[in-house]
Every structure is written in structure tokens, then in C-alpha cells.
């Protein structure tokens, strides 16, 4: 009888997708949080592009460069910050504990989170592109190769940053502390990765530190998608470095996954 019931349990995939629906519903009902998550990068983009104006050779505006970089920063927010705080909150308010007492597996829970992050990140990209196109002459690439680049940069960024967010949520003591331990490195790295400041203004050591983390590679990847190839010389390495980008983001996926597997807990209390 036990086995008959086991085979009849809904599959982890089905439960995961159902969790995805419920995660989205809960996320989009928290209006202030939604507005903040989505408009904050757009708001900073408009500010930055108004402070630093000017054009590069080939008529590329500073606004265009910031728009492309901000897409990278935006999806790091919808993945890394969203997961770091979201999972810590699920641990604090009893969501995870309750799930642990049901047939829901960790796989289904994370599948739900993946759906949430994927939808939120795509929405973020659409919003930032809309702002960039409306205000800063950003144009959508027509070359399919660039969309391929877009797809893998998007995927690797979202996966690596979600995993890192989940890992950091386990290290944090609670949701409050998770908000701090995710936001501080995030904002610091936005500066060091040339998202908030043009690359030529950054000291060498900051570039070095920035290039250890995913944000720099995400931002550079999206610049390679949305800026003409003549802009590659403006990068620290003088080229788009697609190989290194894939390698760096891929390595963070592996590190993130390992950290998750080692640190994941269903409750805040140990024991």
C-alpha cells in the first residue's frame, strides 16, 4: 500500500511547477517589493546616464553603454538578491519547515524558485531594454549570433547568481541579515565591475577584484550583445572575451551549486 501511494504521488517536476506558480503569485502581490526590484535599476540607469553624458567614437552614447551594463546588474538583482533574501525569508517564516513536513522535495522547491527567477529576470530585461530604447538610442540586435550570446550570458548569470544567493541565505542568520550580506557585496561590485562608473575611471585594482565575480562578466556580456563591435576596444582587455566570460560564469555556477549542497538547511535552527 505504501508503494502504491508512493507511485501515485505527483512528480517532483509537477510539484515544482506548481510551486513556481505560487511563488510568482506571492512575489507579484508584494507591490512595494515588485516596484522596488524592477524600477531601482531603471532609476539608477536614468540618473547615471544624466550625470555622465558624452559619446564614444562611432556615435555610441554613454547612455547606451550604461543601459547594456545595467541589464547585467538588473538580472543579478532579480536572481542573487531575490534568492538570498527570499530563501532566508522562507526559512524564517516557516515556509521551508512546513514544506519539509510534506512530500515536497528540495528539488521541487528550487524548481519553483527557478521559475520565479526566470520570469522576474526576463521582466527586468524587458523593462531595462524599454528604458534604454526610449531614452538612450539602444537598438535591438538583428544578428541572430548576438541573440545566442544574449541567451547564454543570461542563463549563466541567472543560474550562477541564484545559486550564490541561495548559498548566502544559509550563511545569514535570518532574513534581515540576508538583506545586508547580499546587498553590500552587490553594490560594491556594481562599482568595481564598471556598471555604475565607466571602466576608464576605475583604478586597476578595482577592475581586478571586480573581474573575480559574476557581475563584471554579465555586464560585459550584455555590452557585447547591445553595443557595436567597435566598442570592444573600450573593455579592459580590449576585446569582448566571450570565452573567459563563459568560463568565469560557468565556474561560479559550479561553486554556487557546491556551496548550496553543503550549506542548505530547512530551518534556521541547527539540530
Amino acid at each position, binding site marked *: 500500500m*505504501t*508503494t502504491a*501511494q*508512493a507511485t*501515485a*504521488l*505527483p512528480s517532483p517536476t*509537477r*510539484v515544482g511547477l*506548481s510551486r513556481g506558480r*505560487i511563488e510568482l*503569485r*506571492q512575489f507579484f*502581490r*508584494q507591490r512595494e517589493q515588485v516596484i522596488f526590484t524592477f524600477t531601482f535599476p531603471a532609476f539608477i540607469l536614468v540618473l547615471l546616464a544624466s550625470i555622465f553624458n558624452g559619446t564614444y567614437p562611432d556615435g555610441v552614447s554613454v547612455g547606451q553603454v550604461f543601459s547594456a551594463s545595467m541589464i547585467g546588474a538588473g538580472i543579478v538583482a532579480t536572481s542573487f538578491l531575490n534568492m538570498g533574501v527570499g530563501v532566508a525569508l*522562507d526559512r524564517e*517564516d*516557516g*515556509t521551508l*519547515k*512546513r514544506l*519539509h*513536513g*510534506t*512530500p*515536497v*522535495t528540495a528539488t521541487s522547491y528550487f524548481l519553483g524558485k527557478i521559475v520565479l527567477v526566470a520570469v522576474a529576470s526576463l521582466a527586468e530585461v524587458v523593462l531595462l531594454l524599454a528604458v534604454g530604447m526610449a531614452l538612450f538610442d539602444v537598438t535591438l540586435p538583428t544578428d541572430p549570433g548576438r541573440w545566442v550570446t544574449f541567451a547564454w550570458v543570461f542563463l549563466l548569470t541567472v543560474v550562477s547568481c541564484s545559486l550564490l544567493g541561495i548559498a548566502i541565505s544559509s550563511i545569514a542568520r535570518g532574513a534581515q541579515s540576508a538583506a545586508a550580506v547580499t546587498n553590500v557585496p552587490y553594490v560594491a561590485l556594481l562599482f568595481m565591475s564598471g556598471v555604475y562608473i565607466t571602466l576608464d575611471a576605475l583604478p586597476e585594482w578595482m577592475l581586478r577584484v571586480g573581474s573575480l565575480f559574476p557581475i563584471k562578466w554579465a555586464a560585459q556580456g550584455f555590452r557585447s550583445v547591445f553595443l557595436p563591435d567597435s566598442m570592444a576596444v573600450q573593455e579592459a582587455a580590449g576585446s569582448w572575451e566571450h570565452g573567459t566570460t563563459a568560463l568565469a560564469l560557468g565556474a561560479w555556477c559550479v561553486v554556487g551549486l557546491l556551496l548550496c549542497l553543503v550549506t542548505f538547511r*530547512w*530551518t534556521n535552527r541547527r*539540530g
Partner: protein
Amino acid sequence: MDAITVRGLGKSYGDVTAVAGVDLAIRRGEVFALLGPNGAGKTTTVEVLEGHRRRDRGEVSVLGEDPGTAGRAWRARIGIVLQTANDAAELTVRESVRHYAGYYAHPADVDEVIERVGLTEKAGARVKSLSGGQRRRLDVALGIIGGPELVFLDEPTTGFDPEARRQFWALIRSLASTGTTILLTTHYLDEAEALADRVAVIVGGRVVAEGTPATLGGRSQAKATVSWLAEEGPRTMLTDTPTALIAELSRGRELPELTVTRPSLEDTYLELIGETR
């Protein structure tokens, strides 16, 4: 077969010994209540049985499996009502219950469960707008939606108004009448008396007494207190043979204000936890 057997269960948090050798045997279909003062180790014991916490010592079998290693299929057979949770604030009551129903192979009917816990009028309301007692009723609904064989309830009626408590008792009785095994903890002795087939009293991580509510701590054999109004004023006597005493006293007369009482469950309980302090 027993639904739950526990032998020599022990659990410490650092220097604090929360459970120090608990033995329990809970039969299938039984309603079993754990009583005990704050910090006695009730939640710790129950959470070990639920698979939420790891034990340090002892043997535990819940529905034939070790909760420390049991899998999905086992979790589908138990229902847990948490002592503290405030998740899913943005969902409505019905959305939550329906979503949880989707985790199980043979869930109960969503609206029927909402009705059974008395939340029909709040079915469309956001969880965050519920009162404390309504929130607990939702917890109960989520605990029973999967049609469990065994339900754990940790202080399920804390914060309920008297009417809601009666409703809840009726719900537990109806679950029990369909053969569901129930393990609950409570601080309300009337609740234990009304619901439980058997109770155990835990003090300082140990079971100090176990039995039916009527016989706990030798309650049924305890001396009866006979009180009446004599000519000199009110009188009270403790006796093993109240019938004989009254016959002798009255000799056919009416004894004014006559009462015969045995210790209440609360008296017995307070005596039990007092002895061990």
C-alpha cells in the same frame, strides 16, 4: 501495530538536555496527548517524531519507519500542524489549501477541509489578514489536507476562542473516528480530558506519568472528598469509602450542601509536576 514507538529518546542542545530518555507507545487510531510545563521537552519530542530534528539517542519508529531517514512516501502519510508559522501571507486561504492539496496523491476536498476548520467565510481572504486563531485553523487545514494516517498537533488550540476550541475538538473527534492517529500537545487539561484516549506527562525531558485521563497518577483510586454543612459549620473529610461515610453520617436525614469530589485532572497534573520539581 503501534503507530509510534519511542525507546530511550534523548536530545540535547549544547548544555541543555531537552529530552532525557522518553519511552512512548502510541497505538494506531489512538488520540494521545502530551502534557507538561513550558520547556518540558514536548516540542522537541514531537519534532523528532516528525523528522524535523535529529535525536542524539534512542530508537524511534513512526508508521514503521525511522523519521530521521524516511522519504517522500512516508511524509505523505503524516500531517504536521506547526507551533509557529507565518508563511504564505500573500495567498488566500483557499489558494494555500488548494496548493498544498497538489502535493498529495489522494488529498481531501479543498472546500470541505476549509469548512471543517471553520474558515469558509474567510476562504477568499489573504492569509495576512487572518486573526491569530484563524491562522491556526489554517495551519490545521494544511496539516490534514493530504488525508494523513497520523497527525501531529503542537498546541493546536492556543489562541482559540471557546467556540473555536469546541469546533476544533469536534474536528479532532471526527478525524479520530475515521481511524486517524493523533498526537497532540496541550496546556489545557480540559482539552486533554475531552479528546485524549491516553495522556503522558513530561517534566524535565522525562515521562513522569502515563495513563488514561481518568486514571492518570492513580486518580481513579484517589481518596474522595466529602463536604457537607454540619450544625457547627462546613465540614470536609477525605475517604476511600464515600458511600459508607455518607450512610453513617446521614442515617436517613438529608445532609445539607453535600458534595463528593475526586481530584480533577488538573489537581493530579499539578501534583505530578510539583513532585518532580
